């Protein structure tokens, strides 16, 4: 974490994490056997790898992974746009917040994944229920963070802009929008992990595509290694999305002191 302490020993830390990975993989490979845990409970690393290759060749693994990844991306982007727009509107209009907040609170408390069966009833075994669950689940952290940020702006800054004869749009574009960026990105990080959950739940509930489908398929077939492969790939999708967001955040929020950026 502490960049200043890390500087001299970066190389050693790299070696350390590679070693740790090797230890982890070795433990996964041999420890379950040593403790007598059967392969259908925890399949060793090599079995999961073999299953991965097998699925690539026979189960259209790339296709299912791409489907899930695209649904995650679609749900994420739509949810973020929606959350941002609603966050700004509620932040700028007392009346809108007053009227809409009870409904938003109710929706926020409702477990979003419980909507998955409903969406399947509405849209059938298509991509839409999955994307919709992701949109719903991504929406809240983004909306709440943007709303909070707009609320937290020092009114004197807005008055300063207005004293320079700023229009309402200029106040938004030059003050409110940039001021909301740090909490917005904090919301995006949370949303990235939630988007994967939303899509997977959608896939578990219905359909015959995506990694969520492979999860249920593997479960039904008693193929534990297949379930492991699906979990690992889902995690990878989440990691890629998260990494992209962090990379964008570092460019957009480059003005923040380094420490403040790490924490949020």
């Amino acid at each position, binding site marked *: 974490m502490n960049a200043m302490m890390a500087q001299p020993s970066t190389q050693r830390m790299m070696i350390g994490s590679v070693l740790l990975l090797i230890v982890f993989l070795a433990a996964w490979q041999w420890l379950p056997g040593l403790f007598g845990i059967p392969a259908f409970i925890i399949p060793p690393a090599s079995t999961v790898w073999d299953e991965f290759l097998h699925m690539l060749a026979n189960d259209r693994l790339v296709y299912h992974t791409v489907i899930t990844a695209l649904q995650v991306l679609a749900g994420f982007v739509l949810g973020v746009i929606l959350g941002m727009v609603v966050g700004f509107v509620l932040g700028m209009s007392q009346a809108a917040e007053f009227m809409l907040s009870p409904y938003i609170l109710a929706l926020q408390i409702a477990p979003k994944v419980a909507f998955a069966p409903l969406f399947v009833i509405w849209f059938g075994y298509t991509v839409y229920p999955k994307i919709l669950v992701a949109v719903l689940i991504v929406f809240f952290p983004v909306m709440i963070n943007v709303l909070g940020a707009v609320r937290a702006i*020092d009114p*004197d*800054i807005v*008055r*300063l*802009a*207005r*004293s*320079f*004869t*700023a229009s309402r749009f*200029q106040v938004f574009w*030059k*003050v409110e929008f*940039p*001021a909301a*960026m740090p909490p917005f990105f904090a919301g995006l990080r949370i949303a990235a992990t939630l988007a994967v959950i939303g899509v997977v739940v959608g896939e578990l509930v219905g359909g015959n595509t995506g990694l969520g489908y492979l999860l249920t398929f593997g479960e039904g077939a008693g193929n534990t290694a297949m379930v492991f492969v699906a979990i690992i790939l889902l995690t990878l999708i989440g990691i890629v999305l998260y990494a992209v967001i962090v990379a964008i955040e570092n460019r957009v929020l480059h*003005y*923040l*002191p380094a420490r403040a950026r790490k924490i949020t």
Partner: protein
Amino acid sequence: MSAIRLEFRAVTKRFPAQRRGDAPVTAVQNVSFTVADGEVVSIIGPSGCGKSTLLNMGSGLDPATSGEVFVDGERVTRPNEHVAFMLQKDLLLPWRTIRQNVEFGLEIQGRPTADRHRIAEELLVKCRLQDFIHHYPHQLSGGMRQRAALARTLAVDPAVLLMDEPFSALDAQTKMVLQQDLGRTLADTGKTALFITHDLAEAIALSDRVLVMSQRPGTIIEEIKVDIPDRDNPMERRKSPKVGPYVSALMELLHIDQAAA
């Protein structure tokens, strides 16, 4: 007599009651004064007497309940390009570099990029921030940030500067340096300024006249002409033997000794 830049004409400001049943708060009552071109006028008065309220009306952000405010002979009804204000808080935007912050007002007023850069860089040199043009506010000290805020205020070339305790958050030494900067800059540019402060010595060091306000509802109870040379050099002015008697007179008017007793 030179032209009048800023005029308050029988200005009263009442705020509606916060709770039902309360009487409305009269912050300032029947305030009239003028500030001539190139003049620096300070306002002092007890806390809550309506100094900031006056300034807000001058900037056109809040309307007067009755009476009128004029800048350059034009009635102020909304924010306009003739006035610019500066507060105790620097209000620098953390996502903008110092130069971009100084350009903030110019950008809103739609000035071309080349002009903005030229004006901002000139002012940053004047404010001795030329080495920090591309820094972000968090990389500057409090005094430097306030100098940047002054540059931002001057950048839009306002006819009148409205300042609400701009230096009151600074330590005593930084404050004197900034007062010196301000005194010089105001004299160099011939700007007109209305300056609110609680610091009696500051008011005397910087201004041509000091207006003293009463407790709320605030009105102007006294006008004191500061008859000391070197208005462009507050540092020098502070050393004048005449400062002491002025401070005593102001203390008398504000009943500071009674408040302490």
